């Protein structure tokens, strides 16, 4: 069911490698492993895996450096593993081209969901013009949003924000990225706009705005739009 996508895991911890091997194998992925940055970089070059899982805490090289060097030529998704409470590191890694992140300790169900999202996004670049989730449908061509088949009035900013979210279903988007995309480069650290408009958008599209299902807060990092 996963077309046997090949995944390279770069992690120096044998227990994590073992866990991932069993988990990924039983989900029909093909797995290969590297124990340090040097081995990892050469394996990406030799095997061209469909996805890379990269631990930021490698013994021989800073994970951020590995990430940058990979992104010089490697186009497929990279998911990073890191420790919690390292939000700055996470944001930096996302800026350096990582597609997603997981903090240790992580649940394998979560990892599998992230892998599915990353692989799906890399396969289909062009989207359907009409996107549906929950009781919301968005026509990206005519810029019309419906809730329960009735037209939902959104402001320009709300619509722009929502359309970026739906185009990046399942992906984590940093505060900076969203601010630059919706409001422009000079707004990159004006998080107040994001806070206000995310709250407004949630009130319009979420069933219970206080327990959002679609626009998920990623503490200290950004937001993740999730329809699955």
């Amino acid at each position, binding site marked *: 069911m996963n077309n046997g996508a090949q995944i390279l895991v770069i992690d120096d911890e044998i227990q994590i490698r073992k866990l991932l091997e069993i988990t990924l194998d039983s989900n029909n992925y093909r797995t290969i492993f590297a124990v340090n940055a040097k081995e990892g970089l050469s394996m990406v070059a030799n095997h061209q895996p469909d996805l890379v899982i990269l631990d930021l805490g490698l013994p021989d090289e800073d994970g951020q450096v590995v990430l940058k060097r990979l992104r010089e030529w490697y186009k497929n998704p990279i998911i990073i593993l890191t420790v919690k409470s390292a939000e700055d590191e996470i944001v930096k890694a996302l800026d350096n081209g990582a597609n997603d992140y997981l903090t240790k300790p992580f649940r394998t169900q979560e990892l599998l969901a992230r892998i599915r999202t990353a692989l799906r996004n890399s396969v289909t670049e062009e989207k359907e013009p009409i996107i549906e989730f929950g009781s919301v449908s968005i026509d990206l061509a005519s810029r019309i949003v419906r809730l329960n088949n009735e037209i939902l009035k959104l402001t*320009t900013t709300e619509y722009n924000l929502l359309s970026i979210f739906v185009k990046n279903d399942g992906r984590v988007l940093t505060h900076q990225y969203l601010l630059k995309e919706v409001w422009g480069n000079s707004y990159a650290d004006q998080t107040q706009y994001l*806070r206000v408009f995310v*709250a407004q958008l949630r009130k319009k599209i979420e069933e219970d705005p206080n327990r959002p299902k679609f626009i998920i807060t990623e503490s200290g990092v950004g937001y993740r739009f999730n329809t699955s």
Partner: protein
Amino acid sequence: MFYQIIARVMSTILNQIKIKNQYLISVLSVGTVASLCLFIRDYLDYKIVGYLLLVVVSVLSMFLAILPLLLSAVLSALILNFLFIKPYYTLHISNAEDSLLLILFFIIALVNAVLTHKIRRAEKILQVKEVRINTMKLYNALLDSLSHELRTPISTIMGAIDTIQSKSVPISDENKDNLYGEIEKASLRLNHQVENLLNMSRLESGVIEPKMDWCDLEELIYNVLDHLKEDLQFHKVIVKTDENLPLFKLDYGLMQQIIYNLVFNASQYTPKGAKIEIKVSYNAAVDFEYNPEKLFPCVITIADDGIGFPENEIDKVFDKFYRLQNSKTGGTGLGLSIVKGFVEAQHGIVKLENREEGGSVFTLSFHTLTMNTKEISNEIAINK
């Protein structure tokens, strides 16, 4: 007892005065007293001046280091001789009685200085010992609670795995599932405690630098409640926030941990069906003016209608590793001290009180930049 207090105060003063300034103090105080006496030299017996200078040396001996002290003793002897013992302005002494007096003066000043210095040193050693004993006590408390809090889940995991893997005794699928459930619970508990310990060590090492950014506290509170929904399934949680709650400049991650620990605590130490009320209040003036420079109060209260805290222990609950005398549930006594540390890292204050109507209330008060969001929302009209 009284002497100990004086000595402690003095030694703290001593630690704060640089050695160079100590020499200055010693010369200045002897000089000042001597020059004051000089004006009334003709009406005073030089013996009185001698006593006065002795008093100066004695007072100095309570907080100066040994070398500046010896300087003051020598200096006062010289001044006494030069200015007050006839013939004036010479170091020559005409009669034997005066010579004897001067020598006695010098010896008393010296002995006084050296003795006080020795007592002070003994006091210091005692203090160091006391600190070490307290550290040991704290360390033992840590070991006690840690060994319990970490070993319990580890035992559960190891034991459950043994039973599942055991070949001699077959185990039913239902029991297997139960054991897997216990393993999961144990690892979550282990994770929670490790998280606490890491937070504590972050606080201890002083590496916490709050990242102040605009926070939607209503969203943050519901986010925390969502993480705690398992623990709160038998509690009634009420969130009271204003519809137009402004944004506050606080550290989102630290605030999350603070509220998490307080609500988690309330869920653990109150009976099923208890009510937990979270309220955010702010200065209504924010609704009418927006001043990007001005700090406004932001007060978060977390109240429950449980049994409250014993009055005599309220002051101690924020201490590291402190656990209530009669507490049954596990815990390392770290949760509330992390709350205190994280609140103070954002220049806030945390307070615990028992409520008259029963239960207790934690009050978090911050003074922080506050933003009325209406202005931002108003932009919509322009965009439209």
